[in-house]
């Protein structure tokens, strides 16, 4: 059989003629430089391949070598703390090989093959094992215990188990005999195709929120563990900033941060900040439980398409060990654009705005790989995805935003007007929603406070009423409104400035525990109710508003540290006595 050779080259798309040795989604090596590619189309005449590296300098007639396996990632200890490109090549190793600029055709090991791990082998000779069960464990980083799991499609009897000790990732630690009598040798690492979801035993109903410490998210639009959320917003509205905040503070065990077609400086920043940031949970660097995938906007476009799948496959692997993973995908629009670009090169019939007709099915496939699961080995793990969307021209009716909306259950819409007024996070409270509210109500009521849901409802009602009133104010000014409506506007201002706005650069305000979030809501509503009562007793609204009470409530976020919730009681008393003093004055005048 003749070696297949390149017939045509058009950007990242290469075609091969008259061969039938390739299979769909197979990984191949293209050209003399052995560039990594993937088969994306097969006809009896032509095989179409997308190449994950630059194709400059490639010639027709150069060989294309099959690998016999689909595009896969290597899974094993050494993933965490690492930074990979879109097809899981470690960028630090690439730097050692080619310097500051990334050259093409570099062949590097995915994970560190020299590092030794202290491995505990968990099974004995003779044990019967099922797919997904753990056979060994080692401390991957100081924060995360890594479990080596039997590949899901493998089961059988252990015929050799290595003693506990120090092993490298390619050392054999286990031999297994399957039902057909075949012997399988297992090391600390394995491969898994990126486009296939890893199986789990059972999908669980989301019931616990992923706590982010961001008030507008946790209180108004919460996301469940195993949930999906989209953050759409024009440029400069703070998508990336919001994702950084969530990645830094959310209570997931492991963070997978996918920089998909975004800025190089941003990835550098994530790397720098996460390394320096002391993780409140472990006391170590946050990178100890983070993996970064960087396909910046100037890296090859085909690898951008793959980066999303690489990221979610890594996440599923850790989920199977019983961890809760949060994926930050920034930005899914760039991924959709990569799909469009490749689709265009394949001369496929375009649907809306040049995007291929299969955009919605690809999006749903991706988002459906999230969820809370019971794993094959009986543990509980989850994958939560927070995807940024960059709508063209800030127009939320464009195809990527609209299709994403159909497949996510949280929608955190960012608003240019808020961003211009430097109201951060610029999440618009009228446009955003969370479908998890009901699933999570029980958690909030039992774990935080029975009145939590009621308070939240009242807060969002006040914001809604403000919205209606502002329509009037914009036409005729606020002077004509009756006092009780003016009070709503004032209270809504306090909610916006004192509660919804959150300062990511302030040591106390950057992360706020649920308990304090609740106490802040309670305080705002208490003041509102008290003032409403006083209004009925004809105390002047103007005096109340300018008594400094509102400013005290707004500054609570800075003035009361997160770990001193008892001070809310003192403050409430202080405010009450200030308001009572106004009432006394009023009585004296009368």
């Amino acid at each position, binding site marked *: 059989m003749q070696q297949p050779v390149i017939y045509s080259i058009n950007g990242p798309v290469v075609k091969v003629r008259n061969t039938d040795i390739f299979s769909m989604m197979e990984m191949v090596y293209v050209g003399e430089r052995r560039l990594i590619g993937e088969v994306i189309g097969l006809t009896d005449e032509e095989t179409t391949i997308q190449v994950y590296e630059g194709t400059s*300098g490639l010639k027709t007639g150069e060989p294309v070598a099959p690998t016999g396996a689909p595009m896969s990632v290597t899974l094993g200890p050494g993933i965490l703390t690492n930074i990979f490109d879109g097809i899981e090549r470690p960028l630090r190793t690439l730097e050692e090989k080619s310097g500051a600029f990334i050259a093409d055709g570099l062949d590097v090991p995915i994970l560190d093959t020299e590092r030794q791990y202290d491995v505990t082998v968990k099974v004995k000779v003779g044990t019967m094992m099922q797919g997904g069960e753990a056979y060994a464990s080692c401390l991957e980083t100081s924060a995360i215990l890594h479990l080596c799991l039997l590949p899901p499609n493998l089961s059988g009897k252990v015929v050799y188990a290595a003693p506990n000790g120090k092993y490298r990732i390619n050392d054999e630690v286990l031999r297994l005999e399957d039902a057909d009598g075949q012997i399988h040798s297992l090391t600390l690492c394995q491969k898994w195709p990126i486009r296939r979801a890893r199986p789990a035993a059972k999908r669980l109903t989301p019931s616990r929120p992923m706590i982010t410490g961001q008030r507008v998210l946790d209180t108004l639009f919460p996301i469940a563990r195993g949930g999906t959320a989209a953050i759409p917003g024009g*440029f400069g509205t703070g998508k990336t900033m919001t994702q950084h905040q969530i990645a830094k503070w959310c209570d997931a065990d492991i963070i997978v941060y996918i920089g998909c077609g975004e800025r190089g400086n941003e990835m550098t920043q994530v790397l720098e900040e996460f390394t320096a940031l002391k993780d409140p949970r472990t006391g170590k660097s946050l990178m100890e439980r983070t993996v970064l995938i960087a396909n*910046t906007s100037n890296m090859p476009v085909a690898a951008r398409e793959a980066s999303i799948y690489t990221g979610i496959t890594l996440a599923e692997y850790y989920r199977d060990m019983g961890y809760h993973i949060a994926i930050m995908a920034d930005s899914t629009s760039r991924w959709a654009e990569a799909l469009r670009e490749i689709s265009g090169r394949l001369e496929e019939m375009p649907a809306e705005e040049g995007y291929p007709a299969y955009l919605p099915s690809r999006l749903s496939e991706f988002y459906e790989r999230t969820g809370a699961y019971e794993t094959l080995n009986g543990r509980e793990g989850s994958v939560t995805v927070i995807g940024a969307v960059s709508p063209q021209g800030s127009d939320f009716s464009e195809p990527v935003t609209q299709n994403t909306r159909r497949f996510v259950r949280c929608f955190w819409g960012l608003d240019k007007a808020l961003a211009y007024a*430097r109201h951060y996070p610029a999440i618009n409270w009228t446009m955003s929603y969370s479908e998890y509210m009901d699933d999570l109500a029980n958690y909030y009521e039992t774990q935080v406070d029975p009145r939590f849901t009621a308070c939240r409802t009242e807060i969002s009602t006040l914001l809604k009423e403000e919205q209606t009133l502002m329509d009037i104010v914009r036409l005729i000014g606020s002077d004509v409104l009756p006092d009780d409506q003016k009070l709503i506007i004032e209270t809504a201002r306090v909610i916006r400035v004192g509660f919804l706005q959150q300062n990511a650069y302030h040591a106390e305000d950057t992360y706020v525990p649920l308990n304090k979030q609740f106490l802040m809501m309670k305080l705002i509503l208490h003041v509102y109710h008290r003032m409403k009562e006083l209004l009925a007793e004809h105390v002047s609204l103007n005096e109340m508003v300018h008594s400094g009470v509102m400013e005290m409530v707004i500054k609570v976020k800075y003035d009361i540290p997160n770990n001193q919730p008892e001070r809310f009681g003192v403050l409430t008393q202080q405010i009450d006595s200030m308001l009572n003093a106004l009432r006394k004055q009023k009585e004296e005048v009368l």
Partner: protein
Amino acid sequence: MSLQYFGLHSISGSLVVLDHVKGAQFDEMARIVLDDGTERTGRVAMLEGDKAVLQIFEGTHGLSLNNTRTQFTGRPMEIPLSADLLGRVFTGAGRPADGLGEVMPEKFGDINGLPLNPVSRQYPRNYIETGISSIDCLMTLIRGQKLPIFSGTGLSHNKLAVQIVQQARIAKDDNAEFAVVFAAMGIQNDVADYFRRSFAESGVLQNVVMFLNLANDPIVERIITPRCALTAAEYLAYEKHMHILVVMTDMTAYAEALREFSSSKGEIPGRKGFPGYLYSDLASMYERAGIIEGVEGSVTQLPILTMPNDDITHPVPDLTGYITEGQIVLERGLEQSGVYPPIAVLPSLSRLMKDGIGEGYTRGDHAAVANQLFASYAQVQDARSLASVIGEEELSALDRQYLEFGKYFESCFLSQGFNENRSMEETLDLGWTLLSLLPKSALDRVDDQMLSAHYDPAAAAALKERMAKNG
């Protein structure tokens, strides 16, 4: 290699197809010699079987199917690089255009560059003082940043770019050299001349490299102009260890050239007819700004683009905004009311500013004053729109104070002379003085300590008096 191909298979727009080609590389350069002895340059845009599609930089006029000899060079598009680039003027394709002869190359550089490994980048932290209050205080330019100017036709973006180039200062203790690479894409002769004259007058011309593709030059050349400029910039920055400011104008003309070229290739168009890969294409240039860890030198980009019909949602400004680290937006209304530079503060932003200002860089109160100015100026806009409905007299006292603040902010802070170079100290102090026009309780973005240190109604009153005197 001396294998020559006679004739062409077909010609369409700026593309030609050659038949029976052996061993051509994707993306390599070819030389095409016409019967009359003139030469054209082409690049392999696609290979299929033994056919090669070439894009011709100088245009295809005069080519026929049988008056050419084509020779492949085996090399990608490269330009000669040396320290002697400084002070020179080149065409958009990197050939000398000032009659001073060829550059003696120290090396050749592939104009496409290679992606910078995020691991090797150094996060930009050092600010560049431009001497322009609105930029320095509210959207600080950082070394290694890409900060575009979003403008419209007829606005003073060129003047602003020149002022920035003339006044830009790197932190005082730094003695590394500073130079400008200027790339013109599809701009008029007059505009190119304006830049050249301004650089000459301010005595920086010896530190400027110019790549000029003017409005009447071929569009395929326009597509490679910024890449030539950036290759020169990267060389000077990373190998000659200079701090380079790259001014690229006009990116809209570049994108339109790309659209024209794409449609001649018969590609499927995306929004407004621009090719679907416009984002990746723009990113491949903008992402070449940066600093390499451990290497002295930096590339800072100041692209200028004119928004068609002043529409910020047009694909070019829109995609640019998604790639660049902020934007400086110019506004026609301000220009018409005589404000120079006409910078619309609210939509403008510098993403990298937060890490490059404050204690140790500019001044401890910088972030506070900038935040409060943004927030208060946003209130001014609300008050103005309300006033236009119900009249100024009906406004509340606070709203009237906002109107006053807005007026002084625009006339004292935004406005400044073309030769006026304000220091960071002056700018920040001026910011506080203006904020002191407002009641203390309206300044809710600043903590009390900061406020009591800087709130100074007396200074505000003095400013009002001074302005009244000057009319």
